[in-house]
């Protein structure tokens, strides 16, 4: 082998050697074990400490509250939503006492009225809803129920009730014309009250043959209004007619 080639080979070997050495020292140990990244980074990510313990950890020591809570409307609300992150409390219960929020500011985070919230989600206006009183004076946060279901139709249908109160139909209760299932109070939209479906229903009072009081307006059902149901032309909550 010519001398210059020998020298070149030595230089080449030194270069290759230094490259291998540099790679050995510069490329992290676990790089490329699982892919184009340091496999040790997965362990670093996994090694972080817990802050939220999870509701299972709470239930292990507080079964009575957990049982009550799991049967109630707040069953999907984990303990740590209101009581804060409590992994430290699970580690050493005596040293970290979870807060029990009693102030009025917490509940409106979910329950204050907001147009963007889904329909049917229970919402109140914190300004007008029993101002100054803590929510927990009336509502048990672990098993909340609305204080009472509205009994009167007017609780929700105030405008109709006010109109009807001044009309000729004031004395007729809502349920005379509307059949209201009990479910309507819980899921108003899914269980709507009925409306009279026949002309004969109004005819019980308003037909020529009806045995109702004489001063009630009468029509001849066979000629009046053709095929239409009465409420398609007359607004039954405020019927027109001579005073």
């Amino acid at each position, binding site marked *: 082998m010519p001398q210059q080639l020998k020298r070149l080979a030595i230089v080449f070997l030194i270069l290759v050697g230094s490259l291998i050495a540099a790679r050995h020292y510069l490329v*992290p140990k676990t*790089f490329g074990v*699982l*892919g*184009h*990244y*340091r496999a040790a*980074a*997965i362990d*670093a*990510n*996994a*090694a*972080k*400490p*817990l*802050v*939220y313990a*999870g*509701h299972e950890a709470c239930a292990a020591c507080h079964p009575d509250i957990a049982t009550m809570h799991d049967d109630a409307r*707040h069953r*999907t*609300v*984990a303990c*740590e*939503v209101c009581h804060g*992150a409590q992994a430290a409390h699970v580690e050493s219960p005596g040293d970290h006492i979870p807060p029990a929020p009693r102030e009025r500011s917490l509940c*409106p*985070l*979910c329950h*204050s*009225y*907001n*147009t*963007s*919230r*889904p329909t049917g*989600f229970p919402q109140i206006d914190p300004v007008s809803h029993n101002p100054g009183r803590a929510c927990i004076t009336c509502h048990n946060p672990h098993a909340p129920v609305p204080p009472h279901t509205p009994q009167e139709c007017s609780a929700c249908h105030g405008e109709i009730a006010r109109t009807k109160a001044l009309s000729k139909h004031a004395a007729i209760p809502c349920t005379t014309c509307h059949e209201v299932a009990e479910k309507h109070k819980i899921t108003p939209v899914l269980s709507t009250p009925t409306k009279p479906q026949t002309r004969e229903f109004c005819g019980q009072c308003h037909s020529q043959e009806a045995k109702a009081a004489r001063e009630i307006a009468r029509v001849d059902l066979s000629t009046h209004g053709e095929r239409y149901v009465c409420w398609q032309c007359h607004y039954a909550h405020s019927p027109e007619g001579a005073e």
Partner: protein
Amino acid sequence: MNTEANRPQEEPGSPEEVSRDRREFLKQCAAAAPLLLATVRVVEGAVASANDDSYKPEEHNYGMGIDVSKCIGCGRCADACKTENNVPREPFYFRTWVERYVLTADGETVVTSPDGGIEGFPSTVSEKGVLRTFFVPKLCNQCANPPCVQVCPVGATFLTRDGVVLVDKDYCIGCRYCIQACPYGARFLNPITHTAEKCTFCYHRLVQGKVPACVEVCPTGARIFGDVGARSSPLVRFKHFNEIQVLKPQLNTEPKVYYANLDGEVR
């Protein structure tokens, strides 16, 4: 050879018979040895697997479901995320956040997210007449084909075997390429470490068999977590019973955050 040939002629009770018994015994021992070793190994294996409750990443492929119709915009997810992952409290850094969409009658779409929704949203929304309005929780979509991983020049962000995109904060050089590449705006540069940061699906919780902090605290169950490919998981049920959409499907990032009841206006 010699002894074999002579054996039939030997008398019973002779020393030769004793040695034959020994031979039989050794033969049996030899035959039993592999069985014995195998038994020992099986027992050892059983003991090892009993002790080995370690996490097996290849058995998982995580995803999240979000039911938009259940989100009440309370922002507990964004708050819990910051607590769990020590995210800076300034209102610019979020691993997950809640957006409010307001579609007005004149065709305008207004998207707001004051402090990521942590402090709640103001009640009044628009004077123009609201057509539709709803909340949309957002987070890293944990893409199966993540653009952020493709652009990282040093291999500091990667897709794990269990389908989570993680950041190696000891190796990240803070070049911000991944922040630019993410089509969902899910990454930010941590102002303290000056490295890229993002939702990890609370990886440290997953390896302990717990769900991410945002899923834990969501009060209405709007966030559903589980394995994508499992035979039965909350996520699989959620995907089965809802019409599912993902964000920006046209980018082929194959997101693993699945939205139900998502409005067409959501970007």
